[in-house]
């Protein structure tokens, strides 16, 4: 860190999108070889700031200095040439290309200047880069789109690390990873730091910030709030800077009665993906489902919900066998499903909040197939209020909402059906700390009313903090059931990596 001029210095940055000011007079500086956290609520402007830095967006005002020299990048390629590389928040994998093709996209290795690619060399380097991250189970010829989100994320990280970057921006790199991958990522980050590489680290996971970062800059509503040394600050202080008030306890107090079993799954199997899946959920209970990436948890939930066909097994609701062949059957029975991939599977991005919420509730808001505007508006406004969705109103396109508020819309559309059983798959992925707490509060309210909840999550503190019982999966099979009081980080991880049933 020894040098006097910081590597990156951004001052008085302004940025608006069609009249909506997203960054206001923001300052931001990164030293050589430091790991600098960038935090703020959903929509605070973190990603935008990074995009302004790397030339994806052009700033309206302000100065960017690289190594003390004023610089303006007009496209990300220029930034890359100056050693600045970004691992973007949204995955930038081209689904139909292979792993190595993705790794070298835009910087293919060629025979001299011919434009003819050296594919052998690219594959070799792909294997090496992945190995550096401790990943050995991804073949360079696999089609990237067929890999789980987590593996895709690892490819992106490997791709960034393969360049001789001086600064790597990581915009929520761990949102789709589980603890083991995060561990190996942190090891690499550590060694990069030793080599003098700087890192801008964006995350909503507080533990990570304290574990690896040197300094932190906080944004709120597009405004610069402050920069602190991690060593000199605290969890509470950072949260207060982010949300502008005390947030209180991280997981809200649970106050609910656990009742009868309402939902049972017996010996569910889908060949090649999972087998012998048996579990139940009781009224008012939160069943946490833990596991490593690719453990097959999402697949199980999608099969239960009728989105994919099952090969065998039975499902019971209130003790009676039910047949679910299409999500519509599940919806009719009062089962809700919040998917892990809200953009691809949860929302119609181009449509309004109202239309999205109404989608699961078309029956309720219509008479004889004709939608009643008053019923619809009432339902939508009630739900927006209940979940405190921050939006200009029901007519705003969900596309323009921040991640946390999008997630609330997804939850709202399922609350509308007044579910008896609610499946939540990674409900707080990419959601800021304030919104997370709000989601937990909603879950609490539901269980208080007797709803049975199944929550798939890869964030261990969340699983441990919210669940009444924890089911752990490993490679398509259940390896453990743990009660709230007996569960801890260690025994969940043991089961998730295939350790014996406890």
């Amino acid at each position, binding site marked *: 860190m020894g040098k006097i001029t910081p590597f990156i210095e951004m001052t008085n940055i302004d940025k608006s999108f069609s009249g909506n000011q997203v960054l206001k007079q923001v300052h931001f500086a990164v030293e050589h070889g430091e790991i600098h956290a960038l935090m703020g609520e959903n929509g605070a402007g973190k990603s935008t700031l990074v995009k302004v830095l790397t030339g994806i967006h052009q700033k309206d005002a302000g100065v960017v200095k690289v190594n003390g020299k004023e610089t303006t990048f007009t496209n990300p390629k220029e930034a890359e040439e100056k050693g600045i590389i970004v691992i973007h928040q949204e995955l930038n994998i081209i689904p139909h290309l292979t792993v190595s093709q993705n790794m070298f996209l835009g910087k293919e290795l060629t025979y001299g200047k011919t434009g003819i690619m050296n594919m052998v060399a690219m594959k070799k380097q792909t294997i090496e880069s992945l190995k550096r991250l401790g990943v050995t189970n991804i073949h360079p010829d696999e089609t990237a789109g067929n890999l789980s989100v987590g593996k895709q994320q690892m490819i992106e990280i490997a791709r960034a690390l393969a360049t001789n970057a001086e600064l790597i921006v990581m915009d929520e790199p761990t949102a789709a990873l589980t603890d083991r991958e995060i561990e190996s990522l942190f090891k690499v980050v550590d060694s990069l730091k030793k080599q003098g590489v700087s890192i801008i680290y964006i995350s909503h996971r507080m533990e990570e910030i304290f574990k690896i970062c040197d300094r932190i800059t906080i944004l709120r509503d597009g405004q610069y709030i402050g920069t602190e040394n991690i060593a000199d600050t605290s969890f509470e202080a950072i949260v207060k800077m982010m949300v502008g008030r005390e947030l209180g306890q991280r997981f809200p107090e649970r106050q609910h009665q656990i009742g009868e079993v309402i939902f049972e799954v017996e010996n569910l199997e889908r060949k090649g993906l999972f087998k012998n899946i048996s579990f139940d959920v009781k009224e008012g209970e939160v069943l946490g489902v833990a596991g490593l990436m690719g453990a097959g948890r999402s697949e199980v939930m999608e099969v239960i*919900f009728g989105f994919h066909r099952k090969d065998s097994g039975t499902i019971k609701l209130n003790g009676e066998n039910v047949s679910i062949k*299409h999500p519509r059957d599940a919806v009719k029975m009062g089962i809700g499903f919040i998917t892990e991939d809200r953009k691809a599977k949860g929302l119609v991005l181009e449509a309004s909040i109202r239309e999205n919420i109404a989608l699961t509730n*078309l029956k309720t808001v219509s008479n004889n197939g004709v*939608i009643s505007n008053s019923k619809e508006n009432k339902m939508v406004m009630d739900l927006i209020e209940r979940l405190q969705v921050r939006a200009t109103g029901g007519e705003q396109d969900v596309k323009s909402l921040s991640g946390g508020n999008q997630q609330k819309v997804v939850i709202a*559309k399922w609350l509308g059906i007044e579910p008896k059983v609610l499946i939540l798959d990674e409900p707080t992925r990419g959601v800021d700390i304030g919104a997370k707490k709000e989601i937990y509060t909603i879950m609490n309210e539901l269980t208080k009313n007797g709803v049975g909840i199944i929550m798939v999550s890869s964030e261990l503190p969340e699983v441990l903090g919210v669940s009444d019982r924890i089911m752990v999966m490993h490679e398509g099979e259940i390896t453990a059931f743990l009660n709230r009081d007996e569960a801890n980080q260690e025994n969940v991880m043991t089961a998730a990596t295939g350790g014996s049933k406890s």
Partner: protein
Amino acid sequence: MKQFLTRNMAKIGPLIGLIVIMVILGVLSDNFFTLSNIFNLLRQVSVNALIAFGMTFVILTAGIDLSVGSLLALGSALTAGLLTSGMDPLLAVFIGLLIGLALGAINGIIITKGKVAPFIATLATMTIFRGVTLVYTDGKPITGLSDSFTFEMIGKGYVFGIPFPVILMLIIFVILFFILRNTVFGRQVYAVGGNEEASTLSGIKADRVKIWVYSLTGMLSVLAGIIITSRLNSAQPTAGSMYELDAIAAVVIGGTSLAGGRGRIVGTLIGALIIGVIDNGLNLLNVSSFYQQIVKGGVILLAVMLDRRSK
């Protein structure tokens, strides 16, 4: 406020285009703004508009239907066949419309159950339907249809001085407008086109929605075909060729996105009017047919680009 403005700009973009073209034609030709020409124009537009209404639904679900023209020919030929066999005209028309529904459903089933991309599925049925029509008619027009007042009415009649096809088009427009805007089915059409997976996971049977949408288009195409048949008092085996292009153009000029999920049927009506006005105006001005093609293509491009700008 600003958002409100830009939003409504997008909605009136095509309308402005239409008005500009009409004003230009009004200046260039004295005959353009006569009541008789306006009705004439509307009657001509009605055929393309009806097909384009159906196409709007299809495109909203992110599909496309290239078979409309052949389907129109087949449906009209079969209806004409029923008429020459002496069937009651109303019944024949009704059966004709059902045939259209069924042919459209075939498209829908190939696309959803056969998992064939709409473009290629309807490209194939376009060829097949045309072939069946030629076989059925032996390549010759079917004439000697009904002299019944009812059947003549459909294409040639007037009600309160307004051509009957125009009234038909407007009634159907109002119904479809209502369906898209106010019914569960309409909502499902937008949702399936916006994000099929998310819709399915919300409990919507996307396949069923799609099959209905192609069926609707099939029925409307045959209705358009019956109007033509009634006007010409004969069914042509070659009727409707290339109609798909005008219908798609009307939908897209009207601001509906080919990617699905976004658009409005009012836009389609305006788009059909733009195309109809260009054709009519170029005829009125007696522009050489060579140049007509250039002008028409150019205006379509311009209309679409203007609309993009205003968004």
